[in-house]
C-alpha cells in the first residue's frame, strides 16, 4: 500500500478562450473496441445527469460536464483534487455511424456507445464452392 499513488486530476487544454473562469479537468477515459461498437467511458464525478453536453461535429466528439461549484469558501485541511468542469475531445474516424451515437450516465461515469458504420463491421466471408 505504501507505494500507491494518489489519483490526481489533469487540467484540460480546451484550446479556446473561455467566458467562464475556473479550471477545466480532463476526465480519465477508457476506450474499448468491440465487434460492433466503440465504447467510451469517462469519469466525471460530481456532474449531475442533465449537466453533460455531448457534441459531435466534423468528426470531433466533445464531452463537457458542468460541475456546480461546491465548498468554494472552504479552507481545506487537505486538498488533493480540485472541483471544476470536465472537458475532453476526441477525433472520431469515419468508421463510426454518427447518427446512432448514444450515451448513458450513472454514478459519475459517462458511457458513450459509438456504433461502427455498417461498412466497417467485421464480417465473415463465405467461400463459395466451385
Amino acid at each position: 500500500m505504501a507505494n500507491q499513488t494518489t489519483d490526481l486530476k489533469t487540467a484540460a487544454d480546451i484550446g479556446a478562450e473561455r467566458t467562464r473562469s475556473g479550471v477545466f479537468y480532463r476526465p480519465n477515459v477508457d476506450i474499448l473496441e468491440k465487434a460492433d461498437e466503440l465504447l467510451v467511458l469517462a469519469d466525471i464525478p460530481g456532474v449531475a445527469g442533465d449537466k453533460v453536453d455531448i457534441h459531435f461535429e466534423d468528426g470531433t466528439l466533445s464531452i463537457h460536464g458542468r460541475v456546480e461549484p461546491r465548498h468554494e469558501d472552504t479552507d481545506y485541511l487537505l486538498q488533493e483534487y480540485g472541483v471544476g468542469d470536465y472537458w475532453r475531445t476526441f477525433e472520431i474516424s469515419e468508421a463510426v455511424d454518427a447518427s446512432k451515437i448514444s450515451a448513458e450516465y450513472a454514478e459519475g461515469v459517462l458511457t458513450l456507445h459509438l456504433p461502427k458504420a455498417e461498412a466497417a463491421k467485421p464480417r465473415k466471408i463465405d467461400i463459395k464452392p466451385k
Partner: protein
Amino acid sequence: MVFRYQNPRQAMDQLRDEVNRLFNGWLTNGTPAWLPVRGQPAVNVWETVDAVVAELEVPGVKSDQVDISVAESELTLSIHRPETEPTEVTYHRRERPSGDFCRTIRLPAPVDPDRVSAELREGVLTITLPRAESSKPRKINVKTG
C-alpha cells in the same frame, strides 16, 4: 558531508524553493504533471464548526463497494472500483483506475464514531464526522473577583 554552498542560507533557500514548487502545483490545480494518473482516490478534508468532512471522487463505485471505518481520530476507507468490462475487448485507452484501494486518513480532531454519516452521489462520496464532545470548542466564562 560536503557543503557545496558557501553560505548555508543559500542551501536552505534552495530547499525551501523546491518544496514550495512541489506543493504549489498540488494545491492550485491539483495536478503536477510528474505524478502518475492511476492510484488511490484523491481526498479533500475540511472542518466545520462541529464536524470534520472528508470528500472523495469515486466514479463508478456503488455504496456497497465502500467500506468506512472510524477509530477515534482515524478514518479508514476501503474502496472497490469495478473493472470496466470483463469480456474480451480491445482497449485503446485505459486510464480509469480499477481494483481495491485502501486509505487511512488522520483526522485533525477526535470524532464520535457512532454519529458518522456518509453520502454517495454522482460519484462523489461525502463523509461527515461529527466531533467528539471532548474536542468541541467551548466558551470559558471569566469570573470577576
